[in-house]
Every structure is written in structure tokens, then in C-alpha cells.
């Protein structure tokens, strides 16, 4: 399946290569570089590139291209999903997935890649099992390792592969037993010129951090499970139980994992928590344009809208912007024409606004398109769909765990057309 993997950085250098079968010369990446040159933006490189003898499937994350070399027919999503899993694992191990982090931990990276694929077919991709095989590096362990010459590789061989719950390592022990669940919802929306919603939907995830001793069996039930329209589960969730009773019943993996992601049924109207008043105009003949933007909260159930960030790609004709924010700071990059305004928290009494003028290229005609405004925000302690966890029970273990549930709403791809 997957023949080789090349890691390519933003400047087009291959900084790591790994082969699972015979060695494929790195010159195969030339085809990739060609495609990269042709693409105007890094995102525009096609994920699947055919070459005379191989196929290149790549993903771009953290400004690193992970280029997999394939020799014969394979579902492309199989490779893409696997590559993303590799990135997730790196992130899990090193905290960040950057070129520097990978270079610093090249041995761990190699050990990981060796375990994750055998002959190009995925072998162990569960983080719980990998962590048993190869200990993640920590500052302390690195120190100890250099001094004592001990190793990163687990002394004992993992048991997880054979247990009935392949996602959970055995012999888990904690002094403080805790289980935290974060219900995070994202609103994807397109708002049109006049402020009416063209499309809006809510996607949510439940991320868990479970640190429980032994083999706990958890059940999580919702007050209003009917809201969940389309769900996908971590493999630990018992599907039958969900089908029959709408209860999440599972033996959790140890540590952090995504329990569930869901889509809120589209019949429910989506409450849009912010509104934007905008007036962006360019006058014919003059080299000036007006920019006027005001944000305000709407349907937030009394919760504050925080970490608001507005960004907009201004037309190419704009040379500079001279704006005045009522709060926060703004930046304008004259090269990329990207305007971003870090608003912070919206105070309903004093609405944040950004006003001023834009200077245009002299003599150029007025741009005939208006920029789209992208908004990011966070609302704590609220799931916008109204989803509520009813209760969390634990079976199979004697102790009383500490349980916590947090709700949050975020903007996903939230765009306002002007």
C-alpha cells in the first residue's frame, strides 16, 4: 500500500524520508514540486498526483507536506486518513508538529513510523498502544536518558493488541480518578449582504480526557439526544446501545480522545450569536474607499462572546488601510491584503467598531468585488444547539471518580458576504 513517505517543508526541502518497501528515489518528489509551483497557494496543491510509475498522495498540515508514495490502486482516503493519523500522533507525542520538533525527535519519529505501518499496511495506530511501545519524550526523560543511557522504548511489550479492548492499555493506575468531557460546538454559517442567513449548521464534538484506574465502563446519556442527527463514534462506543437507547456506553481509552462527533439536525433553526453591520464602499474615480464595520451580540442567552477575531481578504487594488478600532488592535498586510482585527470580548453596551479609509492604487478602476468577512469567536458555558449531558455513570470499578463537563461554542467557518 504505502510505499514511502517524504516530509517536505514550506521551502520545498525533503527533510525526512521513510521507506517501508524497497527504496524509492526521492527524485519522485520532483513531480510534487512541479505541482507545488503551479499552485498559487499552498492549499491548492492537488492531494493526488499521478507520476509515470507512482502516485503521490499528500496532505498539508502545519505547513508541512506529508507525501506518501503509492505504487498501485488503493483507496486514496485510506492513505489520506492514515497520514492525518500520523500527524495527530506526532502532535500527541511532541506537543507540536513542526519541522523542528520532528528533526529533534527523529529517532522517535522513525520508531513510530516503523510501528504504525508494516509493509505499508497500518499495524498500530491507536495512541494508547503506541505509547506503550514507545514512550513519548519529556524533558525529564530526555535528561535521564542522556545521562543513564536508558531508552525510550518500553521495556515490556504491549498487551493492548490482544485484549478485548484494543484501544485501552491495561494496568492503568491513578491516584486521582477523573473524567472530563468537553462539548464543543462549531457554527458554520454563510451570512449574506443583508444579514440574512444563507446556510448555517452546527457541528459538535465531545472530547474526553479520562484518567481512570482499571477497566471502567462508562455510560453517558443526554437530556435531548434527538438533537443529534448524524454521529460518528470512537470505536469504543457500543453502537447497538446507541441505536436502541441513545446512550453512549463505552470502555474509554486512557487519556485524551474524541468520543463523538455529531451534526445537529438541520430542522432546528440555528441561533446566530453575532451580527455584523458593514459598509465597505469604493467610489469610482477616487483613490479612497470607506470601511465601516460594527459587531454586536445576538441570541447568546446572556453569555459573553469572547476571543472575537475578524479577518478579511481585501481586494487586490487596496494599497493600505487607515482604520480606527474602538477596541482591540488591527493589522493590515499590504502584500497579502489580509486585514485582521483582534476584537477580544464584545461588550453589548459599547459595540466594537472598526472605521476608516482604504487607499487604492491611483488610477486603477474600483474593484468590483467586495471582500468576505471571516469571524471567529468563542462562547463559554454554552452549547448553542442546546445539547445537555444528563448523567455520567461508571460501572465495573469501585472508586468514585471526579466528573466534569464543559460546554463551549465556537465559530467554525463563519463568513459574512458584503
Amino acid at each position, binding site marked *: *500500500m504505502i510505499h514511502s513517505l517524504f516530509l517536505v517543508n514550506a521551502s520545498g526541502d*525533503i*527533510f525526512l*524520508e521513510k521507506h517501508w*518497501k524497497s*527504496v524509492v528515489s526521492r527524485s519522485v518528489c520532483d513531480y510534487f514540486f512541479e505541482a507545488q509551483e503551479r499552485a498559487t*497557494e499552498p492549499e*491548492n496543491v492537488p492531494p493526488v498526483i499521478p507520476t509515470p510509475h507512482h*502516485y503521490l*498522495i499528500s*496532505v*498539508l*498540515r502545519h505547513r508541512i507536506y506529508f507525501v506518501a508514495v503509492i*505504487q*498501485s*490502486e488503493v*483507496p*486514496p*482516503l485510506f492513505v489520506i*486518513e492514515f497520514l*492525518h493519523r500520523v500527524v495527530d500522533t506526532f502532535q500527541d507525542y511532541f506537543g507540536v508538529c513542526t519541522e523542528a520538533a520532528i528533526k529533534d525527535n*527523529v*529517532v522517535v519519529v522513525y*520508531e513510530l513510523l*516503523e510501528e504504525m505501518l508494516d*509493509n505499508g499496511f*497500518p*499495524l498500530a495506530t491507536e495512541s494508547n498502544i503506541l505509547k506503550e511501545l514507545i514512550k513519548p519524550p519529556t524533558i525529564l526523560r530526555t535528561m535521564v536518558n542522556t*545521562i543513564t*543511557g536508558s531508552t525510550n522504548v*518500553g521495556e515490556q*511489550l504491549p498487551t493492548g*493488541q*490482544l485484549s478485548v479492548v484494543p484501544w485501552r492499555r491495561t494496568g492503568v493506575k491513578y491516584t486521582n480518578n477523573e473524567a472530563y468531557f468537553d462539548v464543543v460546538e462549531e457554527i458554520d454559517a*454563510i451570512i*449574506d449582504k443583508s444579514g440574512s442567513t*444563507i446556510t448555517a*449548521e452546527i457541528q459538535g464534538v465531545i472530547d474526553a480526557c479520562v484518567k481512570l484506574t482499571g477497566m471502567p465502563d462508562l455510560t453517558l446519556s443526554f437530556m435531548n439526544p434527538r438533537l443529534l*442527527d448524524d454521529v*460518528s*463514534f470512537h*470505536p469504543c*462506543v*457500543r*453502537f447497538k*446501545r446507541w*441505536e*436502541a437507547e441513545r446512550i453512549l*456506553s463505552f*470502555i474509554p481509552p486512557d487519556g485524551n480522545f*474524541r468520543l463523538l*462527533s455529531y*451534526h445537529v439536525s438541520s430542522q432546528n433553526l440555528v441561533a446566530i450569536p453575532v451580527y455584523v453591520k458593514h459598509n465597505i464602499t469604493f467610489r469610482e474615480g477616487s483613490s479612497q474607499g470607506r470601511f465601516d464595520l460594527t459587531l454586536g451580540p445576538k441570541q447568546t442567552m446572556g453569555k459573553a462572546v469572547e476571543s472575537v477575531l475578524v479577518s478579511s*481578504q481585501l481586494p487586490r487594488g487596496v494599497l493600505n488601510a487607515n482604520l480606527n478600532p474602538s477596541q482591540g488592535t488591527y493589522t493590515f498586510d499590504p502584500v497579502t491584503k489580509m486585514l485582521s482585527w483582534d476584537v477580544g470580548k464584545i461588550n453589548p453596551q459599547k459595540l466594537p467598531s472598526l472605521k476608516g479609509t482604504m487607499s487604492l492604487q491611483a488610477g486603477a*478602476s474600483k474593484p468590483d*468585488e*467586495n471582500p468576505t468577512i*471571516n469571524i471567529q469567536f468563542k462562547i463559554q458555558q454554552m452549547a448553542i444547539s442546546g445539547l445537555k449531558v444528563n448523567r455520567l455513570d461508571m*460501572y465495573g470499578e469501585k472508586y468514585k471518580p471526579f466528573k466534569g463537563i464543559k460546554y463551549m461554542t465556537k465559530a467554525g467557518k463563519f*463568513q459574512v458576504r458584503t
Partner: protein
Amino acid sequence: FFSRSRAYSEFLNEILICQCLSSAKLRLIVFSGLRNEDLKEMLESNKESHKLEAMKRVVGLIAKGKNASELFPAVVKNVASKNIELKKLVYVYLVRYAEEQQDLALLSISTFQRALKDPNQFIRASALRVLSSIRVPIIVPIMMLAIKEAAADLSPYVRKTSAHAIQKLYSLDADQKEQLIEVIEKLLKDKSTLVAGSVVMAFEEVCPDRIDLIHKNYRKLCNLLVDVEEWGQVVIISMLTRYARTQFTSPWKEDAVFDENNEKAFYDSDSEEKKGQTESKPYIMDPDHRLLLRNTKPLLQSRNTAVVMSVAQLYWHLAPKHEVSIVTKSLVRLLRSHREVQYIVLQNIATMSIQRKGMFEPFMKSFYVRSTDATHIKTLKLEILTNLANEANISTILREFQTYVKSQDKAFAAATIQAIGRCATNISEVTDTCLNGLVLLLSNRDETVVAESVVVIKKLLQTQPTQHSEIIKHMAKLFDNITVPMARASILWLMGEYCERVPKIAPDVLRKMAKTFTTEEDIVKLQTVNLAAKLYLTNSKQTKLLTQYILNLGKYDQNYDIRDRTRFIRQLIVPNEKSGALNKYARRILLAPKPAPVLESAFKDRDRFQLGTLSHSLNIKATGYQELSDWPAVAPDQSVRNVEVIEPVKEWAPLVGKAKQPKSDDKFYSDEEEEKDEEESESSGSDDSSSSSSSSSSSSSEGLFYDFMLPCELHDTDSTSLLSLYLFINLLLCLSAQSQAVKVMRRAVKSPIRASVTTPSFSPVKTYELLHHMSGKGLAAKYHFPRQPCLYQPNMVAVQVILTNCSDHSLEEIHIGDRSPASLNIHCFNTIERLEPEASVTVSMGIDFSDSTQAANFQLCTKTDQFSVSIQPAVGELLMPSSMTEEEFCKDQGKLLGMNETSATITMATANTSSLAINKQLLSVANVGVVSSSQNNIHRFAGRTVSSGALVLVSLELRESSTALLTINTEKSIMASMLLRDLKQALAMA
């Protein structure tokens, strides 16, 4: 003090070494020539830490793609190291360089051979992994031996590794194919979920055409699928898709009727039963086909996008048309994932949306383009939106397109214009609107937008050129400002094609072109020549000289295409002595009416590839792509998938012991799967799997039923033992509606019951819901009519109730409370003291319905709660079969005429006209007995009402063209009319 200071100095020493190492690193960079020497030295040192450090460096070199092959001898010595990490790194090195240093690599083989015998399964596995990764042809026999041994290993993990090794060996030496297939065959039989994915992968690589190996394992693979790790699922699903296309008949026949509700009944009933219900073109989905569809469906909820996609493609290629749409939601969900995932999923949706608009239309808004999307994502979304456009939604889509046209991404804006053009040709209502919109775009400032508009307008005008000379004039005016060659060429072509509509303008455009001819692009030059030729033919007076001039320019052009074309045109249009017969036809050649171009989706022809494949994504046949075969016209023998189940006796034995307290079917089955523990069976849906596996196995294990029945052939009529026996028989009947089982029952059940059981019906038991667990606070109850005479009182109808505890605490004292009407005569079941969570119990009751279909209402009570429930019998359940001869039947029928006779002419589904089918259908509705008939076209059935014992005689006389006369003779005229209605419905239905 001394010892301490020594320890201290040792510590310092260590630090010094560390520093040395790092300085060595420095030196490595500075004097690159020295580095291998240093590393070799370190590798050969005695200290483990030095070796490890050196190996880490070496791995670093490999990772960077530097050559470290010189170190091979030094590295390979460490292969037997005790240090696990060092060993692993040596393995990494070995696998990388063994191919280049074959002789030296052989030194390490003995270490692996030893490790293959290690008691620790992981050491065995990793030894096999490395051994098989060393691509040295000499060791092929050793590898073969190791693989064979590992395939029989007790540890599934080692067996998994051996499946991987098969592929490695195959790629090293394809001559081993036959032997490897043997190993694959053996591993395919493996029941471990760990092995399944890997061995199917090996199968796909080594012998994808040996479909015969799959037959026996098909059902097992289907049933294991949910528990296989995600990557294996993808491989298995894609293999099963191919398999299914060769083994089952197409479910896509036009009038194929398939009722989702019948799904359950499938496995309980024999396939004959199904035949009775189908219409003229009988399509019966093979139960194995259904099994595959049903077992893959839950995987749509997988977090792994590749799994979801593979299930989606399986449904697309295998499911009946109306079932495919269940994958829509999951596919749309994937659009939330990473950019690359979106790309692939959108490509597949684009292909799907061409054939099946309806599937994605409700989700149209999910395909709206965001300004932050990557260009290829935008284009794909646009493609899908265009595919989805129809009369109803076109206005919404066009409004959306208007925004896209203004996009800053000009390539995307251009693509939008093309999309508008496609909408305009496909939906004639909006052609004019689109055309007007496009004309407005001609005054856009952006050149690419204008150019694209011109090209699209050209295509649109071609479809209806009659009244658009205004637009052509407008475009001629714009001509001077347009610089994009393609657009200029398009305008020129339009001028030429419709030169008679713009007789004044066309020559003028030609005049301008003559001026700038030499500076134009090739494509524009070609069209200029074209225009000149056409004008020459229609308006030679004005343009003769201009044409001559242009042809002369063309004659000396640098591009040979243009020179060629010029020469050809000149010969064609200018008459001279050399020109042949073609000259006469010049007009007809150049000014022939041209068919309008069809604006089609770029994904039109992608459906020749299986969805979700690399080939589909690239629209090129990729290496190793396996063609998806067409459905066979006639299904191959389906019995090849039957597995000989040699049921060990002990598995059935507990059943006899449990006969007094029969558990529910589900519970009973799960005993069978001894390998799975509770945990797994819960998450895996073994409920389904086991019921299907046992229905397939029941036929082969009929003999066993006999054996077990013998000890329970009770001769005393003691009521409790009789009851338990009776329940046991019912259980058997539920398990398999097989005649064998009935025979067994007849043998077993002595006198009092036997007489009354004349013609047991073989129809599947329909189960009705009595109490849903949501309303029952965890207590769920279902009931069915076993169609057995009631043991308690002869005038009661037997009802079996399955009580299940779905809550998480045990329920106590389940019994029947108040009933209404109060006179209702119910024989209750004994109070169930305690029902554990997840447990279920089957109890039987008797109810005297007094020959009416009025519902029996009563309360189902637990210790704490009471739930009102009701049982409403179908009229056919109030009967019991009565055996009589044809003469008796006719005689009795003669007595029940006039008021007592109800009849109707009915239309029957053609599939129901065979006598077998009629019997099936009738018996499924009513619990009556078949009366053997001497006439072929008359079918007779007799029964008595349970309560009053009144005769019910049903006769069906077949007429021409699938009509029939249905007559019911009975004193109970209300029942007769109800029965008539039910029968009519059943017989008309396929």
C-alpha cells in the same frame, strides 16, 4: 569519601562522554569524511549507551536520506543485543540496507530464526516482520517456512504478521504464489478479528481473482466486520464489494420490490416464503447479499473517513436504488474533515450526483462555496451544485452563482461562468435569464471573466441562434477590448457562423483583423481565416480582397497549421482550374448547420471506475485496479457459501437443561459464540450475526435436534413437564420454521396435543411490540402468536411474550395486573421474580378473545410500576386449523350458504398464482389447514374459530388473468368479512 569521589568522578566521566558525543556530532558536521569512522568506533565500543547513541545517529542519517550503508558490518553485529531499543534501531537499519548488502545480511538470519521460536509472541512477531522485510532472494525458502509456521501460531498477532509477510514474500518472489495461496486459504479461515484485515489484504495482493476462496468465509467476514480494526475494514469492504458483484443478481430491476421491514423475517424464514410475495419479475435478494448490506451499515458511523467512504461505495454499487440514500448524510459529514478528505469525497459525490440528483439535493447548502476553500474544492462544489440544479432550485443556485462570479479568485469566477452555461443549456426555462446575465458580465473589468463569458455565450447562442443578433452585435463592439485569445477566437467564430445575421458588422471585423493578423495568437489566426472564408462565400463582393489578403498572410505564417489551413481554404473557396469537385460544395462544407455542443459534467464518464478508488480520483486506470464486474444474469450457486457447521454436542446440551426456563432467543444464541465475551458481543452486534449463522447452521444440524429430543420424550402428562416440553418445542419452531423440527415435535409430543396439530404453518412468526422500553422504564415486551393450541384452555389463543430488561437495574415481580374488559379471560404467566439487566425471558399466556378482534387490554406490572398494554389479534390468529377431506369440505360448505357466505373477486399478484405461493400467503394470514384438492384451480382451506369452534371454510378459485374468486363460508360473518379483506390484501401483494 573516596568511594563517593569515585562515584562522582565516574559521573563526571559520563558527562565528558556526553560532551564528546556532542562534539563528535559537531565534528561530523565539520569533517564529514570522518563521521562514519566515528560511528563505527562507537558501534564497536563496549558501552551500550555508546552503541545506542551511534545507532540513533545512523537512523538520523537514514531519515535524511544520507547513505549509511558503509556501516553495515558494524551495525549488524548488534542484531542480537539485549537492549530493546538498540535492537529495534538495528532492525530499522537492516530492513533499509539488507537489499544492498545481501551477503552480510545473511549473518543476521540465524538470530531471527532463533527468535521465531521465542515463547513471547511479540518477539516471534517482530522477528518475522524483520525477516520478511529483508529483501534477499536467497532466504525465500526460510521465509516460506517461517510464514507457514507463523500462520499456525497460537497467537493471532503472530498470524497477523504472517499475513503481512505473505505479501512481502510475494513481491520478492512471485513464483511462490501457489504455496502462498495455500497459506492465505488457511488464514482466511481464521476467526480472529486481528487477522481478518491483513489476510484479505494479502489475498488482494496475491490472488484477487481466486474468488472461490472467499465463498466459505463470506458470512464469517460479514459478521466479523464490525470488530475488525478500521484499516482492515476498508480492505475487506472493498473486496466484498467485488465479490458481491460476481455472486449476486442485480437488485436494480425496475420493479424490484423490497420491503425494509421484511429484513428481519429473512433469516427466520426460508427463501421460498419470500418467493410467494414477489411480483411478476421475481427478484429476491440473496440473504447473503442482505447480510453484507446490513452488517456494513453501522460502519457509516465510523470516525475513519476511509471506512465511511468504502461503505458508501459498497451501497452505491450493491444496494437497491432506494437504499443508497442512507449514505448521503455520512458523506456530507465527511465534508467537515480535512481539505484532502473533502477533495476525495467531493469527487465521489460529483460522480454520484450525476446519476442521482435526489440523493444530495436536500443537502445542497452544504456545497455552497466559502471564500476560504481551496480552488480545487471550490470547483468541485461548483460541479456538484451544477449537477444538482433543476427547475425547482435553479433560482437559488443562480443567486448563489452571482456571488461566486464576483469572487476574487478569478479562476473560480471563470469556472462559475461555465457552470451557469451548463445550467442554461440543461434547464431551458432559465436560458434567457442566464444569457442576459452573461451579457452583463461582458462589461466586467476582469479579462478572464469576460473571456469566459464570451466562450459560454458562444456555446449558448449555438443552441438557439434565432433571435440573438443583438448579442452578437454587442460582442462585436466589445471585440476591440478583449485580448484573451480564446474569447477573440470565439467572437470571430460567431461572426462567421452567423455572418448573414450581421451583414454589416462582419466585414468590418474582418477588416480590423486583417490589420492585426500578424500579431494575433494562432487560435485567433485560424478563426480569422475561417471568418474570411465564410464571408467570401456569402458576401464576396465586399470581402474578396480582404480574404485574398488574409490568405496571403496566412500562406507565409510561421505556424504550419495556419499555412495548411490557408492552403486548404484557398483551394476550397477560390475557383481555379486545379480545384476539383469540392469547390462546388464549399458552401455546404463551411456553412453546414452545426450541432450545438453538449455541455456536460466533467465527471460524466467517471462512473466507469469503482467509487472511492484511486482510479476514480484520477480518472485514469491505476496500476492494479480491479475492474468491478457486471452483475451476473443468473446468480451462481449460493450454497457454496454454506458452511458445514459441526456443532459440538455440548453447545446444545444446556438447552435441554434450561427448557423449563427458556431464555430469549438472543440470549440463547450468544451461548454459541463462546469465543466472544460479553463485552465484545455487545459492541459487535453479534445478535444479528449469531441469528443468521444459526439459521444457516440449523439445516445441517437437524439431526441433532432428534438426538436431544429423545431424552425429553415424556410419556407422563404431568402438566409442568409438558409445559416445559411445549415451550421447548416452541423455541425450536422459532429457531427454524423447518418441517424437520415439526416432525420432531410430533414425535416428541404424545397424545393430547398431537391430535390438534394438523397442519402447522411454516410462515415466519410476526412479532409485535407490546411495550417499548422507553415507555416501560427499561422493560420491553414483544409478543407473537405461536399458532399452537393453548395448553391452559382450549378456547384460548396462545400468545408468547418476550420480556426484556433494557434498564441497568434488575426488575422484580413482573406480573399481569388489571385487565379490561373485566370479563376478559386471560391465563397469566407466573410472576417473574427477578429479571436481570440485559436478560430476557419468554413466557406464554392464553387469551380468550371470544372470536372478536377487540383488543385485550391489561396491565403489565413490575414491583414498582404498572404499564397498560394491549394485544390486538389479527383475525387470522383467532383460528386454528381443522383437517378434513375434500368431500367433508364441500358438504360443510353446502350447509353454510346464503347469509353465511362471503365472496369477492380478487386480483392476485402474478407471482402468487402458483399453488405453493397461494398456500404460503394464505397461511401467513390465517391459521387454517390446507384441504387437499382434486382440482388444480381450486384451493381449499379449513379452520375453526378458537373460542366457539365455528367452522371457517376458505376456498379460492383461480380464474383467468390472475383474478380469482375468494369465498369464505362461516357463521361468523363479521370475521368472514375481515378475513376476506386481509386475504385480499395478502394475495394482491407481492
